């Protein structure tokens, strides 16, 4: 680095550190006297249970969203025009309405009256299952679009060559189209999974005891401030950062291959 940019960099870095430091000290000056980390420690068990629940919801909804994503993608490529249009309309509806509405409407209006009792009788947590289902459909709608984009981006000759060597319809997807399409959409998919983890916090509105829900309860019961929100943010970061890193790594790895 030559002299000038070096100095400029140092100056900007200094300004940022000072600015951030000032913000932190101001916030701590207001809250500092009331911040009591032992409160968070007291509630560690609920927080841990919430975090663990969020992790499980995320994994389940991730698998669910892959299932729905594939379904929506194939639906949009169906030879039947009715299936294609229904699929399009449904996707458009899902993508253009808030997840919060899906959860409230889907749980209280559609699913709870239908399946809450049978689920409960069999010893399942109906809120959790319906919440995961709704979250899967919502993220699946986005994933369906991502996958469709990836599949559409594969040139026509690849489909034809695959048919020419004698692959069946399923084999064409399995051995030729998906491996190429997935490489192209992996970064977008990883981004979506990061969103999914964060969106799972919305399940608190139907009373699923996940990380946000438990933290919120802890905060309102103990009048906590920083000691509630800081672990909350960190807890989500622990889940999302590995996914983000993984996506960057995959992106780099596959870039050289095509």
């Amino acid at each position, binding site marked *: 680095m030559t002299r000038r940019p070096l100095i400029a960099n140092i100056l900007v870095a200094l300004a940022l550190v000072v600015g951030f430091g000032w913000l932190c000290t101001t916030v701590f000056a207001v809250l500092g006297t009331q911040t009591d980390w032992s409160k968070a420690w007291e509630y560690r068990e609920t927080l841990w249970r919430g975090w663990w629940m969020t992790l499980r919801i995320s994994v389940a909804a991730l698998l669910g969203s892959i299932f729905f994503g594939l379904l929506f993608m194939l639906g949009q490529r169906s030879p039947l025009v009715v299936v294609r249009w229904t699929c399009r309309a449904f996707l458009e509806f899902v993508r253009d309405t808030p997840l919060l509405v899906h959860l409230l409407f889907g749980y209280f209006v559609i699913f709870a009256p239908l399946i809450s009792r049978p689920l409960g009788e069999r010893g399942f947590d109906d809120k959790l299952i319906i919440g995961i289902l709704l979250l899967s459909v919502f993220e699946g709608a986005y994933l369906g679009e991502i996958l469709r984009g990836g599949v559409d981006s594969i*040139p026509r*000759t*690849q489909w*034809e*060559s*695959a*048919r*020419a*060597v*004698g*692959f*069946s319809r399923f*084999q064409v997807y399995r*051995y*030729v189209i998906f*491996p*190429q399409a997935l*490489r192209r959409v992996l970064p977008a998919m990883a981004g979506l999974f990061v969103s999914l983890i964060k969106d799972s916090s919305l399940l608190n509105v139907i009373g699923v005891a996940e990380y946000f829900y438990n933290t919120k309860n802890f905060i309102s019961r103990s009048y906590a401030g920083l000691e509630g929100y800081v672990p909350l943010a960190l807890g989500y970061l622990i889940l999302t950062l590995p996914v983000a890193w993984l996506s960057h790594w995959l992106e780099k790895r596959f870039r050289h*291959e*095509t």
Partner: protein
Amino acid sequence: MKLDVTGLTKCYGTTRAADGLSLSVESSRVLVLIGPSGGGKSTLLRMLGGLEIPDAGTIAINGQRLLSDAAALQAYRRKNGFLFQQFNLFPHLTARRNISLPLEKVHGHTPAEAHTMAEQALDRFSLLDHADKLPAQLSGGQQQRVGIARAVARQPEVLFLDEPTSALDPEMTAEVLELIQELADAGQDIILSTHEMGFARAVADQVAFVAMGKIAEFSPPAELFGTPKSAICQRFLSRVMRY
């Protein structure tokens, strides 16, 4: 091979790519389709190869009527080979894997068998050095040769080649044409479309001139190139032979 085509019609929107096309070939080893671009060569070849279903008309190869249901067409494609202008290979697989994967998944060979067969196919065309390269690391000519190696790895009944050298420079064209000549000499039944007139003349034992969705002329190469009868074929040949 023996070939019987009657009243073949195929429309794309309002254009008639094949328009009541008929062709009867008693016996031919290498049948070459020539003619102007957009005249219907590719469409005819794709229908013969079972990649496109005709709107009307019938095709029979070696006395076997070509059916139009998906399962029969797939079975038909499995016993033949087809090569396009370019991008034949699957870019995420090595040259070897491009050949062995269909052998495993389509023809039910064990991975070890498929591996050996792929090796032999590559070796036959002196491509063994490139076995572990991805298509992007190969030249256009090498890609086409691997494509042909894949198509003939399991002794296809008929090998269909749709303008196999149109996307290549002259040097690569030569290497691919040599390979096709070699296959023809070895007795492989081939139907190919091309713009390489010299090659068509040398390799074909029958030439069909396809224009406006029909066979305008059909005869042995010496005759068709020497004394073309139809006006449209005369015009075409005088134009392409001028330079």
